[in-house]
């Protein structure tokens, strides 16, 4: 009995490892193919000799060097950083204030706002980018990267607020009552009690804000026209493709470098990332 059970378990494991291998090939082949292409010489990419999944004629860093020397890649990178930092800060301040208020200072209408926050989080950017295009035009912000600092928080704050409400709600009410009796005011309570306790939530929310801001594509594509205003996503996709001959090596090098910040963040903070993802439900 136990022997058949064990052999059945072995068969199950074998099937599972087989399946996971297939999944891993499916998931990881695109980034692998991008990476291998970015290190190949142009002749090797064009030649397609032997097995193309390995570098056979020597690796080169030329595509990366050209990216910095001959294209506007560094400008895009700089723009992405300059936009993302204020977006993250602004979104976090607004979300923390709102989450504290909605989870603790029950006022008339707090419930309605809570539900509204959730519903707004479900609104995708492809529903509203056209009216926003007009509104941004009135404000004179078309073709300025700073427009992203205005627009992105609207996509980020609802989810972050919702996430933080969950973390704040888990802090026992006795704690803030005790603090209030001791004469603490709301800003002291928020800074000394809520924020320290909710650090994992804050990290998860910050990661979310960073990721949304860094990977945004539709809004900058629609609102920004000139090359010096582009961010990494739009810059890489639109400006690195020049003429009829595609420079696949350079293109893949750019795409891969642009992917690096969110991927590194994920590698080091995986658990926070996943706790944010499973905090109920996220976009999928």
């Amino acid at each position, binding site marked *: 009995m136990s022997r058949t059970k064990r052999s059945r378990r072995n068969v*199950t*494991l074998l099937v599972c*490892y087989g*399946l*996971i291998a297939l*999944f*891993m090939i499916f998931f990881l082949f*695109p*980034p692998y*193919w*991008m990476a291998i*292409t970015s290190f190949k010489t142009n002749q090797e990419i064009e030649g*397609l000799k032997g097995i*193309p999944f390995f570098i056979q004629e020597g690796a080169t860093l030329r595509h990366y060097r050209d990216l910095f020397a001959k294209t506007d890649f560094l400008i895009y990178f700089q723009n992405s950083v300059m936009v993302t930092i204020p977006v993250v800060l602004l979104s976090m*301040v*607004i979300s923390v204030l*709102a989450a*504290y*208020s*909605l989870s603790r*200072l029950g*006022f008339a209408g707090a419930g309605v*706002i809570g539900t509204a926050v959730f*519903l707004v989080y*479900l*609104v*995708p*950017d*492809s*529903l*509203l*980018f*056209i*009216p926003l*295009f*007009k*509104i941004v035009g009135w404000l004179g912000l078309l073709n300025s990267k700073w427009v992203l600092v205005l627009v992105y*928080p*609207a996509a980020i*704050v609802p989810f972050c607020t919702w996430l933080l409400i969950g973390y704040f709600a888990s802090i026992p009410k006795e704690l803030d009552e005790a603090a209030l009796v001791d004469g603490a005011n*709301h800003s002291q309570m928020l800074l000394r009690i809520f924020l320290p306790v909710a650090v994992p939530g804050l990290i998860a929310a910050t990661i979310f804000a960073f990721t949304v801001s860094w*990977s945004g594509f*539709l809004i900058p*594509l629609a609102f920004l026209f000139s090359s010096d205003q582009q961010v*990494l*996503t*739009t810059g*890489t*996709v639109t400006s690195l493709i020049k003429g009829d001959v595609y420079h*696949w090596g350079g293109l*893949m090098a750019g*795409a891969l470098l642009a992917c690096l910040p*969110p991927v590194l963040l*994920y590698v080091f903070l*995986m658990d926070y990332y*996943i706790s944010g993802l499973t905090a109920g*439900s*996220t*976009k*999928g």
Partner: protein
Amino acid sequence: MSSHGSVADVVPAARVRPARRGLRVRLRSRSAIGIFMCLPLIGLIGGLVVYPFFYSIYLSMLNKRETAFVGLANFHYLLSQDTFWMVLRFSFIFTFLAVLWKAILGFTLALVIHTLPTRGQRIWRGLSLIPWVMPLALSSLGWWWIYEPTHSALNWILVLVGVSPKPWLSDPYWAKFSVILVNIWYGTPFFMITYLAGLKSIPQELFESAAIDGAGPAQRLRFIMLPMLKNIIAITMLFSTIVTLATFDIVRVLTRGGPRQSTHLFGTYAFELGIATGDVPLGAAVSLFMFPILAVSAFFILRGIRESTA
């Protein structure tokens, strides 16, 4: 304020009232502070979501130069165009197939990872999320290169196994297949992670008692896992329906809606009309076609979440 005190109880009132009034003032100031702290949020949502939404409805009823009110003429015009019906049809096919496959593959993967020894689970889960972490516009660029017909990987493999190479992005059928595949690649990790969290939350005793009753793997799936995860499966699929329907990056990078407008979704078609060709009202009208599906999904998501937390 509190005016129902009489002269008779001045003395005790003097002792009690300040505390009471203090509490009341404090309560009032508390809700004032509460609203004050929510103001940035309310301003943001009002100015950049609620107002644009209503403005979008108004905008969709103007003529191309935005000089005259034309009622529902834009919607009439769209519904009389074959191209728009193609967009409509492909948006539904895209969303249906992509969500279905993401759910099936995501559930399978979650089950596989859950079955493997615990010490390896972290690494498999971590690697599986890579497609989800990469910015979609950039990974779509990688796929664009994979689909390249003469110098790239996919057709090389096909030739190797003796199948004729395919025109991945230049033939309507294969182009549709290609954009759906990329969406499945991108979204499956998200399904896996929510389903895995769900599987972990099922009490182990249920499986143990089922094993004593002689339940096999199929029965465990049918009578324990699926019923226990019913809610999370439904909510995840509804969420994904909204986001999948709103897909923009993949199609824009891979095909720009081509060949012959066969892979346009609402988002990319709205972009084409509203931004690229400058018919803003018509573009707004295309986007608004997404709204009914969105609203219905949102309603059921909200209901599902209330049920599972109640």
